[in-house]
């Protein structure tokens, strides 16, 4: 038996200093409508608050430490940096969850959600473990950096994973509300975080599990969105109202479980549905709506505004959104066509 000597000791327990955040948090959630919204990144702020209330809450970062500044300050022992190694981070979180903890994994959507689909499936979802996977910078949020940084397939992947709850908050307050509303859920939860949303909720709502929220009533059509699609739907509804078109807007924050009841009610009430999402047209909200209408034999006129299944352009998010019609005017234009105006 040979005991081979290791090199000198390193690491946090050997007296190494904790890493410094690489970036300052930016107040990207500035409010111009008088709503009370978070002034810093809502994910990090809320996870720290949940940790204040529950000793089981820990956070694992795959090179996302800046977001966790509050937790690192208040509960440094419950922050685990895993570096640029997403697969290890998610499987380790599964091990922590199997040991009684409530781990929140923070990762960039393209690398955490898409690269690690198998870890999410095999280690987290199959085993019903209460891992909270927070996919930041989803959709085209990092579109400036290249096609590698688009995350437009994540809903399609996540919703096929048995046992996984898939949610997408519409704004900063919804992010806080969803994190709070699901804190005691015993299974795994996938949070798809949109960046650059416009305010929808004046304060963090209390959401019911699996239920959508009607954020605007209307008679002529229903615009259904999640993430930044909700704010776009509301802005489009304002434009349409000025033209005499009365659009309802539904926040489809639960992609799984899917609120079929709310969808079918909208189909019956307005008969015309427009889905809006920052996702590939395959496998996202538009697909789920079409499946659900078909399975329930409920007829409706359906249009789906999503990203086309082609090589996507690269650019700053605002330019990309404009290019693909994910703007208030773009949504309003599709709505007009749907109602025949």
């Amino acid at each position, binding site marked *: *038996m*040979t*005991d*081979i*000597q*290791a*090199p000198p*000791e*390193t*690491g*946090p*327990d*050997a007296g190494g200093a904790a890493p410094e955040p690489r970036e300052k948090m930016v107040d990207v959630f500035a409010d111009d409508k008088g709503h009370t919204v978070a002034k810093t990144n809502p994910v990090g702020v809320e996870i720290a608050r949940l940790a204040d209330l529950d000793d089981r809450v*820990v956070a694992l970062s795959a090179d996302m430490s800046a977001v966790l500044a509050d937790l690192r300050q208040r509960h440094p*022992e*419950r922050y*685990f940096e*895993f*570096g640029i*190694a997403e*697969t*290890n981070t*998610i*499987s*380790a*979180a*599964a*091990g*922590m*969850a*199997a*040991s*009684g*903890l409530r*781990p929140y994994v923070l990762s960039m959507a393209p690398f955490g959600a898409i690269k690690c689909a*198998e*870890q999410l499936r*095999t*280690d987290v979802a*199959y*085993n*019903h473990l209460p891992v909270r996977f927070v996919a930041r910078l989803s959709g085209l949020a990092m579109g400036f950096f290249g096609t590698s940084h688009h995350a437009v397939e994540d809903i399609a992947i996540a919703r096929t994973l048995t046992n996984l709850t898939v949610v997408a908050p519409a704004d900063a307050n919804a992010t806080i509300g969803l994190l709070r509303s699901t804190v005691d859920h015993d299974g795994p939860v996938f949070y798809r975080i949109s960046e650059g949303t416009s305010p929808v909720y004046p304060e963090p709502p209390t959401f019911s599990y699996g239920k959508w929220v009607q954020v605007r009533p209307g008679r002529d059509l229903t615009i259904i969105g999640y993430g930044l699609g909700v704010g776009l739907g509301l802005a489009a509804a304002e434009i349409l109202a000025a033209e005499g078109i009365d659009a309802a807007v539904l926040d489809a924050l639960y992609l799984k479980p899917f609120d079929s009841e709310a969808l079918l009610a909208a189909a019956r009430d307005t008969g015309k549905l427009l889905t809006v999402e920052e996702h590939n047209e395959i496998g996202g909200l538009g697909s789920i709506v079409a499946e659900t209408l078909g399975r329930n034999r409920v007829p409706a006129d359906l249009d789906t505004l999503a990203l086309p299944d082609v090589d996507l352009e690269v650019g700053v998010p605002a330019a990309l959104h404009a290019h693909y019609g994910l703007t208030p005017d773009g949504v309003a234009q599709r709505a007009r066509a749907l109602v025949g105006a």
Partner: protein
Amino acid sequence: MTTVVERPFDSDSRELERGRPASEAELSRRADWIRLATIELIDQAGLGHYSSTFSCAEIFSVLYYHTLRLRPGQPDWPERDRFLLGKGHVATGLWPVYADLGYYPADWLATFGQIGSPLNDHPNMRLAPGVDFSSGSLGHNLSVGLGMSLAGRLTGRDYRTFVLTGDGEIQEGQVWEAIMAAGHYRLGGGLVAIVDANGFSGHGPTSDAINIESVADRFTAFGWQAIEVDGHDVGALCETFDALPPVGEGRPVCVVARTRKGRGLAMMEEAPQAWHLGHLTPEQRDGARAEIEARMR
């Protein structure tokens, strides 16, 4: 299924402490009993992984009948030592052990291979008591064990987490993410990787595919303490596990267990990859039983 090992406890709350007394002869005999039971289970199911199970039979025997701190009557006891089967395709060798220790009734074994059985070819923690984590996709469980070990340190528990990996399994990139992180977090004897270094993957010699040697040097370079041991020498395995460093201090431990794929049956030792996945004919099965039983007498 024949049980050759007496149940080690009477009541459900009985704790099996670390380092339980067991003679080397008895531990070797139990390893052969695992091989016999594996042959029976695979015979019943019609397909299974013989030679990979045989290479780690002594490791199973020493861990479950000597090393691990357990409460079979309380499988989720928070203070228990954890054992994760990274090379999940050898769960067949664990099913009789869990039944023998009392995690579930021995008649569950008769369901192996059937739809609805809690005992699958790869282990499922949701179905089989005693399984600390599911496996089947190679390369995940060292990461999971890292998470369990970190959780133990955070919650002030002194359990150890053992993760058995195949030597082929360490070709998976995620394993090296876990090795790197565990070296960084310095979990000491809280995290023990056991590499079942039998030298073969499914289709041939492991290092003919991609060289993995020196396993010990590679772990050491990532901040681990590496120990080479004969994986069929139950005395050496006991001694190694008895001498593990304290939980949560210093370098994590890699035990490179040098083993033979197919160990214990001449026909499989001679052609290990031919018996990675297979099914013995009735004549072969009877001959294999006789060869093992002769050694156990």
